């Protein structure tokens, strides 16, 4: 009997019962920055701000809004900083293209080093 009560207790209070077990919600929370925390996402934080954002996101999902619509709404209120994956814009294009620029520059440097060493060996 006691075992049954314990099982029922855990099922009732399991995170599976909560809204937050919804994978879509978790994905959205993980991409939202907790603005009052040090390096935490909304998913990881229990701050007042994060819990309010979670409520708003849950409401908007219930209203049938898409992930993008929710991000757009929060960006309109808090700026691009609130999302970990910012959208491509004039102010952040370097963030998107810098890795490719570094790759190309690095490739050139490696190419020149190899060519130079071959040239030296040949001489």
């Amino acid at each position, binding site marked *: 009997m006691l075992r049954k009560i314990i099982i029922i207790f855990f099922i009732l209070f399991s995170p599976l019962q909560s809204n937050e077990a919804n994978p879509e919600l978790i994905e959205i929370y993980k991409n939202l920055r907790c*603005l009052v925390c040090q390096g935490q996402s909304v998913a990881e934080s229990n701050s007042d701000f994060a819990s309010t954002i979670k409520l*708003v996101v849950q409401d908007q999902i219930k209203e049938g809004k898409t992930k993008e619509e929710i991000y757009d709404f929060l960006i309109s*209120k808090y700026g691009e900083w609130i999302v970990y994956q910012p959208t491509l814009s004039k102010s952040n294009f370097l963030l998107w293209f810098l890795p490719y620029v570094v790759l190309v*520059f690095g490739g050139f440097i490696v190419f020149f080093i190899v060519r130079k060493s071959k040239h030296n060996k040949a001489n």
Partner: protein
Amino acid sequence: MNINFFKVFIFIFVIFFLSIFWLGLKKDRNYSTKNLIGSKISSFQLTSIYNSDSISEEDLKNNQFTLVNFFASWCSPCRLEHKYLIKLASENKKFKILGINFKDKKNNALSFLNELGDPYNFVAKDTDGKTSILFGIYGIPESILIDKDLIIRKKIIGPIDFKQYKEILNLIQ
């Protein structure tokens, strides 16, 4: 000739990175939602803390200016700014103050107002804090000055001090 190309590449590479770091260091790292200034507030519907009266953005269109102030009894900096809200309310009839009581208990909020005075023309409750997100609030106290067209004219993050009190006066005159 090849070695010159190599040196030029390294030089450009270093200059490029130093420029990015320099720009990064010059950038203001303090997060703010002041970019909301000039934008229109979202629609909202709130209930009074005293009774079942409600208020929405439509009611604010009747005021030349409205200061929306988020406060709570548990917020110490809210106590610091309260005297400036009282002064604004008593000295200026040109604008109204909408107080939004954020994630607070009704009795505590009423005690807070009894103790420090009630500068608000309407005190609404935002028990779960959802309305604060519509105003781009991320901590309290925060205040937003809006005009009759519902455009945000000023946003104050943190408690109102003497300097900001003067700035509000200048804006509404």
